[in-house]
């Protein structure tokens, strides 16, 4: 290596890690292949791994899993004694590397040398995945209850995401205990890819829905101080507003009047989507289904002298 080469900054890159946790053996093989091509893992992450380019060396990688953090000093010491360098940990997975010597057999680069310790690792991971499944299951039920109380895209999308998480956790717990079922890493990577795409799309759709709801989220206060004759034709137009997404909305609705008054919301076609006749009423969080479009609010059939209505969408 000449002086010019030494002064050069090593190249780095971030790569999305497609390997699911139950395929850690395939991930190790993949890391070894990358190292043989000159790209060495230097910083493991949950989704992205950081690699450094160096063609002068080659490493062998191994992974260990602990759901309870191991005793740091003793753990590192035992690995260091056999030449393993701890790169870091992510989600309980510990990444180690050791410079590769082609004269040594591949068995010299294994950190688990008996069936019992491999089974113990799989059990640790399966236990964690099972706890994740139970946790997701409980949160999923809370989500189902929220959806039951207010059926809307706002509650349905998180429910679907939780459902995907629940299935993924359960599948992980099952797969780590059945290593023979995941011989094909491409299938495992496709599962992770689909799961990740589903999560990303789900989150983006949720943001879109939330924005659409926020745009509708404003209060309307109207006052009438004269009687209005009966009949739709005589109805007084209060205001109009836009709905940007067809969905169920929660409406806070209050009427305060000295006589009975009719309040109505109509769509562009003139169909009444909501009506209430009262002198004093309060509907907190009233559920109303509205399609995308323009709506107009009206007052009609009022015999008194003073009426006030307040409504607000959430």
């Amino acid at each position, binding site marked *: 290596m000449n002086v010019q080469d030494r002064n050069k900054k090593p190249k780095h890159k971030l790569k999305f890690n497609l390997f699911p946790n139950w395929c850690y053996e395939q991930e190790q093989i993949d890391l070894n292949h990358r190292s043989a091509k000159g790209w060495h893992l230097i910083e493991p992450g949950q989704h992205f791994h950081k690699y450094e380019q160096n063609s002068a060396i080659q490493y062998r990688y*191994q992974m*260990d899993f602990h759901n309870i953090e*191991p*005793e740091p*000093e*003793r*753990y590192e*010491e*035992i*690995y260091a*004694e*056999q030449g*393993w360098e701890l790169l870091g940990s992510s989600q309980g997975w510990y990444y*180690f590397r050791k410079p590769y010597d082609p004269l040594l057999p591949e*068995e*010299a680069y*294994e*950190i*688990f*040398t*008996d069936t*019992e*310790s491999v*089974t*113990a*690792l799989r*059990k*640790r991971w399966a236990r964690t995945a099972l706890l994740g499944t139970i946790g997701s299951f409980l949160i999923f039920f809370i989500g189902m209850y929220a959806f039951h109380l207010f059926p809307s895209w706002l509650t349905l999308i998180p429910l679907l995401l939780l459902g995907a998480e629940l299935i993924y956790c359960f599948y992980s717990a099952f797969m780590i205990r059945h290593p023979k079922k995941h011989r094909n890493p491409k299938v495992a990577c496709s599962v992770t890819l689909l799961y990740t795409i589903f999560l990303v799309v789900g989150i983006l759709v949720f943001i879109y829905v939330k924005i659409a709801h926020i745009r509708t989220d404003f209060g309307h206060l109207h006052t009438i101080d004269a009687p209005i004759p009966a009949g739709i034709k005589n109805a007084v137009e209060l205001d109009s507003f836009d709905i940007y997404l067809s969905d169920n909305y929660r409406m806070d609705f209050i009427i305060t009047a000295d006589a009975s008054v009719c309040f109505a919301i109509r769509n562009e076609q003139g169909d009444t989507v909501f009506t209430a006749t009262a002198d004093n009423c309060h509907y907190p969080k009233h559920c109303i289904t509205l399609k995308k479009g323009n709506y107009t609010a009206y007052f009609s059939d009022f015999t008194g002298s003073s009426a006030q209505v307040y409504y607000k969408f959430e």
Partner: protein
Amino acid sequence: MAIVSYPKTVIKEGIIIKKSEPISESYFYILLCLSKGPTHGYGIMQMTKQLTGGEVTIGSGTMYGATDNMLTKGWIEETFSEETGVEKKRLYRLTAKGFDVLDKEIRRLKRMIANTEEL
């Protein structure tokens, strides 16, 4: 992380008996190496390799799991080297409980060999 449980208490027909269960090869060699005196993880690995002619190796993952489990069970304990002038190294020492486990395992293995030779 329970790989082995030894000795195991079982209740058979209302009588509590102590049942000896085999321990794994790695566990056996760790206990055997430590029976010669306190040593560190690398020392155990080297001694095992030497004793078995390279047939049995104990990798770091297996070593950590086994020592962790043995420390929890009280079969071994941690100690530090008392050499002056050098960095204090973490050593493992066999406890009385550990000696007992090893002794029972050796007797079990001897019995098995004797039984095999008898037939």
